[in-house]
């Protein structure tokens, strides 16, 4: 590989803009993760009515992160944001045992959508600091992640409120960028 092509590659990388879609049930921790990515104060979040968007620079990528409210009433609007998504990030509150089934169902719906076909999936197994939280391996089983064949996926244990694990998840995102022209 010549020097020029390396430079070209570097340049095209540094200009790459990616669209990340952050979804999950209400109170999963999507906005806290978004604020954590943007290095903002996470102690004053409010429930998201509508959506939040932030642009974050990470590993030479410009990540446009869309955080859509998780309330049941808002979920029908999720699909309006599917188009051109590069990475899907799904956040699960691992201490919310009652709604594990609900969150599995919502994820399964997303994975069946035509517009999200082949889009890499990162699952944040959030709230690992709580005693009642299920370990990420168990959450993966509940969500049926091992059955996924049509896309790359990863599950990352994290504590959004103090940032533990969030960076590791983003490193996976940057490594598993879909190849775009």
């Amino acid at each position, binding site marked *: 590989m010549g020097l020029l092509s390396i430079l070209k590659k570097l340049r095209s990388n540094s200009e790459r803009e990616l669209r990340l879609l952050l979804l999950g049930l*209400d109170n999963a921790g999507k906005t806290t993760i978004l604020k954590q990515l943007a290095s903002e104060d996470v102690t004053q979040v409010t429930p998201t009515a*509508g*959506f939040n968007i932030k642009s974050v620079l990470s590993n030479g990528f410009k990540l446009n992160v869309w955080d859509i409210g998780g309330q049941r009433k808002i979920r029908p609007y999720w699909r309006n944001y599917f188009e051109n998504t590069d990475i899907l990030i799904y956040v699960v509150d691992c201490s919310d045992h009652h709604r594990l089934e609900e969150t599995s169902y919502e994820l399964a719906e997303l994975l069946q959508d035509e517009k999200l076909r082949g889009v890499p999936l990162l699952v944040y197994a959030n709230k690992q600091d709580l005693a009642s939280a299920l370990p990420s391996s168990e959450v993966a089983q509940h969500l049926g992640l091992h059955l996924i064949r049509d896309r790359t996926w990863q599950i990352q244990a994290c504590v959004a409120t103090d940032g533990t694990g969030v960076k590791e998840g983003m490193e996976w995102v940057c490594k598993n960028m879909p190849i775009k022209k």
Partner: protein
Amino acid sequence: MLFLNVWSLLHWYLRPLIKWFLRKTTRLCELQRICYGDKAGAQRTCAVENSLMLSRTRDIKEVVAFLDAVVLERRFIPANFDDILKPSISIIFRIKKINTKLHPSFAPTLKRCLQQIWSYRQLVNEVEELRRVQYDSDNSDHELKLLKLWSLLQPNELLEGRVTKQWQTIGFQGDDPKTDFRGMGLLGLENLLYFATEYPQASTHVLSHSHHPKYGYTFAIVGINLTSMAYYLLKDGSAKTYMFNSKISLPNINLFHRFYCYLFYEFDKMWIESKPENIMEFSIIFKKFDIAIRSQLSDPSTVFRINIEIDNI
């Protein structure tokens, strides 16, 4: 940027000179010129605060530090005003060589300003403390407040249980509101409760808008987002215009609640007038509302009122 730096440097050196010149020509110190010249309310009180903060006199700095310490101990309440403010004011009189007999109206005017400035500072601490209290479903006090909110907003409908889908009628997200207060903690609940208690007509009116088939929104969730807005406006000092121009009382927690109610009422109006396509437009309209309120607050002569009467005709 450079211009700004040069200006602040010049200002630092020139300010004493200008002050000295005005003092000699008007025979009044800066605080007197403010108290006599500026309109009562936010304009005057903010100018007094600014003057005190910029002062390089050791004794004035000590007065400021003393009052800040009183606020930290939460002792800046009307019952203590005389004990706390008399010595402070007499120090200012001594340093500025003001003759009390020649200027009888200056002391009460200054006192009023000091009351407003440090009541505001104490309010900031109080609100911060309330925000930090997480909603706790094991705390019976919190639970009672939540149930009271329901009975005020839905007097004709009984809750079928503590955890029920009915909560969504008043705009919570799921079947248990406890996870919806998030970073606004108890402050969010207290705000909603005050709105429902003190403005039953306005809150019912706003709640009914939130049920609109086309322009509906989630009442409680929007309310909690407005708590966050009121909180930031208070913290960065923008709310001083509202608080210092209020004829009702000095800055205190109830005045903060009133400020919140004003914001809720006005937001609802803007939301309905905007004819939003769906709830996804919330972020944009909320931002627009924030900008509009900030621009109103930046004019120190703005007085805020809820015009409920007009609405009932």
